[in-house]
């Protein structure tokens, strides 16, 4: 069975990216995740991220705190860039601006929700790809982005192995009890079915946890057996579904990254 990435044209690749970026941005609106929707949240923190401290140092965050409406400019800017890209006007300027505003959104968002979320990495990777108008460069960076996504999963597995959670047979059960403390209040209706079965011991925590780590490690194949890339695209989607079913964490913004495994634009 041939599971190698399917070759597509440069135009189709760019169209897929634009569609994905737009999808993520609209999805974020409905998740109340635009900066102007969040507004002046009570606790701002970039934890250990140095870029947060640099921006704090130059007065960026104090400016936002004083003039909270400025958050809307970032949302407005991103929306405008996406509209311009769809209408094929000022393509080059719009794609550069989209990446800059996307980075600004990402850093600001993580700071004003005080949580180091990774979901929007999908948006950033795809916006970055959109910069390349040269077909050869676009194709090369598409491949590099795929390796980066594979690295994300491999690194997550290696960290679990080196810090020990991979070797703890009850790791998943313990994580779920922290994720869903409402179990102690008997609010079981709030806990996803599969998570509840693991907490109660009806489903094997070890089996599922080890499967997750194996699934993450399987991304090594992206480097050594590229002909299985489409299978890895399915693995990525499976991982996201499992995350939603067991942890109630929805990495929808990550899903378009599976396109990097399913397809490969050619420079011809």
């Amino acid at each position, binding site marked *: 069975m041939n599971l190698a990435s399917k070759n597509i044209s440069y135009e189709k690749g760019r169209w897929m990216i634009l569609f994905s970026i737009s999808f993520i941005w609209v999805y974020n609106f409905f*998740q*109340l*995740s635009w900066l102007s*929707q*969040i*507004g*002046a*949240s*009570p*606790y701002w923190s970039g*934890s*250990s*991220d*140095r*870029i947060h401290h640099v921006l704090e140092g130059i007065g960026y965050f104090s400016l936002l705190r004083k003039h909270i409406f400025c958050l809307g400019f970032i949302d407005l800017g991103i929306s405008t860039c996406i509209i311009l890209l769809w209408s094929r006007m000022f393509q080059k300027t719009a794609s550069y601006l989209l990446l800059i505003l996307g*980075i600004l959104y*990402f*850093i600001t968002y993580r700071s004003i*929700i*005080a*949580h*180091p979320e*990774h979901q929007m*990495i999908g948006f950033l990777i795809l916006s970055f790809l959109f910069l390349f108008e040269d077909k*050869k*460069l676009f194709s*090369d960076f598409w491949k*590099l982005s795929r390796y980066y996504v594979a*690295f*994300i*999963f491999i*690194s*997550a597995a290696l*960290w*679990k192995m*080196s*810090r*020990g*959670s*991979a*070797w*703890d047979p009850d*790791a998943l059960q*313990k*994580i779920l*009890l*922290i994720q869903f*403390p*409402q179990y*102690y*209040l008997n*609010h079981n209706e*709030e806990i996803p079915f599969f998570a509840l079965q693991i907490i109660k011991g009806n489903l094997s925590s070890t089996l599922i946890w080890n499967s997750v780590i194996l699934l993450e490690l399987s991304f090594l194949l992206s480097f050594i057996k590229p002909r299985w890339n489409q299978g890895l695209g399915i693995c990525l989607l499976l991982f996201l579904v499992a995350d939603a079913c067991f942890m109630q964490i929805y990495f929808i913004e990550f899903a378009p990254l599976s396109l990097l495994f399913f397809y490969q634009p050619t420079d011809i």
Partner: protein
Amino acid sequence: MSILLRLLIFLFLLGQLLFTVKGVESFPFFHFGMYSAQLSGTTQIEFHRIFYQKKDITAKLNPIARYQLKYCRSEVYAQRYKKWLRYYLPHIIKDETKIDIKIFQKRKDQNIELKKTL
């Protein structure tokens, strides 16, 4: 691919490798070590629940509101949080004075107990 571009890629990979090995995160170098620490069991758990008009509405909050909720430790912060929640989730919260935030805790081999109401 130009030499400059190759150099930038190399520097990015080097930076990413360094930050990954160190286990720290700083944009644009991300760390993906979540859930990797070995947990010593449920020795102590502390969590927040939010009540509106005496009804538990924690499950209705979206992740952003939940992230912010866990920082409610003092009365001053709780007041700011309640005010913000009325702005952020107006379809759920119409009057912030009717919100109660309760902090529960569980120590090893103990039942769950109410620690504080804000």
